[in-house]
């Protein structure tokens, strides 16, 4: 499946809505996530406090970003980690490729990292002829299928069991002929196991970077991060600079929030803190550890007053609870990051001109903010991106005209009232038996639903008449 482009959002949406099973496929995952999250939070009376604390941890780190980044660098260097800085996505993936080439790597294993996707690492590795092995089961599935991810936590949620059966039979060395999910998972286990043990380089992302120790933290259910990182000689971490927290103690409140919000589990099975390369006598582990710290639009978010978005811990709760995401799915957004958080991030990673339509594909219902574990005001941020694209005139001309005309009317109340009453007359003309089935200029509404027939006079007309009658009567 070819990746959609963000600028083709209207067409992407059309394509998504035309897929008959898409809604069922999405719901299978999001409904369960929603229910499990609700249960996890009901079982955690301190959740609101944890949220406030989590937000404070992130806000504090963002406020003193330069201090913590410098501290992180110093401590990571002291552990023997080699630090690389990348301003852009291209730079970041080039750094990773250069390290791979330097070590003449033929095979690299990767544990799931959205940042890796963001910087286009998959394509860069594929184009360079290095064998790339995705080790997260979902990433493994979409790698075989050639798909982009459709969710930040369940990247393969759009693929059915039948799809997986086909893919595994085609690609696995020793495939299963069973259709049971457990046998499919075992088939992947067999296939990936030798690859884990024979890779030249392991590449991971990071959920948290701990400033006071220079450590990175991975969080997985499968344990694939440790299996990716430990056997090869070289470990490369790619991480966005917003992953910083002051210390391990500060990561803990965020861990409490992350897994509950993402999957509804109280904790994920594998949380590992990686502190550089193998110590001299260690039984296993990589001999060399590189860390690529990536900006790619993050400092721009800081400059543009979007720093609240840097709190994001990538739990995916906003998309699991988004009515729009649930109907169009992740691919329609045309970005690595879909849903509400993606609609805020993508304009900064790509450009607002290219990704402004997504900011309007939101009813501003506030559900995403309500479930966000770090209280990111996503609707406010989406709205402010709309204001930016309004100022830059990215909106289609007709939309601008309609909104401007409406605003011009609304600031002249008497004219507004007169036009409203004309509108009522017009609507009455289009009505039949209490409803309007179609009406010029209202196709957006009546294409899919009827419009109630208004009363014959506006409220204001009736109210004035009533008042007049009263005063006449008196």
């Amino acid at each position, binding site marked *: 499946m070819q990746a959609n482009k963000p600028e083709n959002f209207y067409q992407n*949406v059309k394509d998504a*809505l035309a897929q008959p099973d898409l*809604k069922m496929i999405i719901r299978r995952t999001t409904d369960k996530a929603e229910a499990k999250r609700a249960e996890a939070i009901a079982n955690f009376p301190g959740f609101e406090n944890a949220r406030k604390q989590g937000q404070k941890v992130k806000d504090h780190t963002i406020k003193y970003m330069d201090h913590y980044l410098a501290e992180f660098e110093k401590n990571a260097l002291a552990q023997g980690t080699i630090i690389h800085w990348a301003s852009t996505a291209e730079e970041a993936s080039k750094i990773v490729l250069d390290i791979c080439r330097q070590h003449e790597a033929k095979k690299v294993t990767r544990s799931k990292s959205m940042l890796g996707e963001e910087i286009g690492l998959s394509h860069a590795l594929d184009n360079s002829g290095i064998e790339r092995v995705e080790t997260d089961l979902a990433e493994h599935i979409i790698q075989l299928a050639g798909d982009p991810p459709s969710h930040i936590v369940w990247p393969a949620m759009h693929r059915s069991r039948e799809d997986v059966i086909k893919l595994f039979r085609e690609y696995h060395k020793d495939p299963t002929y069973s259709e049971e999910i457990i046998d499919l998972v075992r088939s992947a286990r067999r296939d990936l196991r030798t690859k884990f043990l024979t890779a030249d380089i392991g590449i991971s992302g990071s959920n948290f970077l701990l400033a006071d120790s220079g450590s990175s933290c991975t969080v997985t259910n499968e344990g694939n991060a440790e299996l990716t990182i430990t056997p090869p000689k070289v470990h490369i971490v790619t991480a966005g600079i917003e992953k910083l927290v002051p210390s391990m103690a500060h990561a803990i409140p965020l861990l409490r929030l992350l897994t509950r919000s993402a999957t509804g589990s109280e904790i994920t099975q594998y949380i590992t803190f990686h502190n550089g390369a193998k110590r001299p006598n260690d039984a296993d582990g990589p001999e060399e550890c590189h860390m690529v710290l990536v900006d790619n639009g993050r400092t721009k978010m800081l400059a543009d007053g979007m720093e609240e978005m840097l709190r994001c811990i990538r739990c995916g709760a906003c998309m699991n609870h988004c*009515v*729009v995401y649930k*109907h*169009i799915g992740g691919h329609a957004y045309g970005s690595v990051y879909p849903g509400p958080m993606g609609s805020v991030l993508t304009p900064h990673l790509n450009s607002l001109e290219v990704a402004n339509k997504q900011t*309007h*594909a939101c*009813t*501003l*219902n*506030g*559900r995403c*903010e*309500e479930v966000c574990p770090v209280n990111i005001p996503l609707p*406010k941020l989406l*709205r402010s*991106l*709309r*204001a930016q694209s*309004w*100022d830059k005139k990215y*909106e289609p001309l007709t*939309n601008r005209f309609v*909104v*401007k005309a*409406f*605003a*011009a*009317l*609304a*600031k*002249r*109340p008497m004219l507004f*009232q007169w036009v*409203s009453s004309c509108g009522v007359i017009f*609507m009455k003309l289009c009505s039949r*038996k209490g*409803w309007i*089935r179609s009406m010029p200029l*209202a*196709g*957006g*509404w009546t*294409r*899919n*639903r*009827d*419009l*109630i027939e*208004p*009363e014959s*006079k*506006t*409220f*204001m007309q*009736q*109210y*004035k008449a009533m008042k007049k009658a009263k005063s006449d009567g008196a």
Partner: protein
Amino acid sequence: MSQEIINADVKGAQSNAIKCLNISEKKVGLFVTCLVNTMRPSVGFAAIKLLEDAGCTVDVPESQSCCGQPAFNSGDDEGTRQIAYQTIKQFETFDYVVVPSGSCAAMIKKNFVEVLKDQPEWLARAEHLASITHELLSFLVDVCDFEPSGVELEGSYTYHDSCSGYRSLHVYEQPRKMLANVKGLDHRPLHGHSECCGFGGTFCVKYSDISNEIVAEKAENVLATEADYLLGGDMGCLMNMAGKLNREGHKEIEALHTAEVLAGLAPQILGGKNASK
């Protein structure tokens, strides 16, 4: 469908008026909202009746228009400011400003200050207006301690909590509490009661097809309750859901604004329509 709505017991209403008179003689400005003004004036009259029953003096400034949501949500901050200026001027002298819509009330309460944050003088006035502005149903309960009495409506209702009212203004208990006093009316809980109906103002025309998918699902949930009435506090959402239900041929459920039911005013206004059914 039998939908016999009996008028509010006059005595009950009077006793309510007397009860509330002692606590407050509040001067309330009614912000009618565009949709009530053009599509459903009965909601405006219901609001006046309820507010008067609750002991308020109600005035409706004739020189009012829209709260500015279409401009604000489209990102047109300058257009929004122009609308905010005149709304502030029209309403800032009241004791309270009451709005029969969660989303318009939230616009005035939360977003005027957002667009005026760089204009200190207007900001102060916007903050004052925000402090006196209330959504109708929550105002009746939270400020007036109003309990409707003598209102009867045979049947069952389900309730859609519109997003702005529910999330921005925490309107949830208030309408249910008042509706519990309507004789003959049973509540049927709605699955996904606080999930967006897909209206979203300009969203529903800009992304009509996504909106349609969302409201279709909402309609299914509404129908599953087998309630006679679908109630809510926002005309936008109600029109969206009612419009979808009607398009799908479902005449067995009628959407009403909660104020219409509580005021017992629905039959007078809807008389013609019901008679034609």
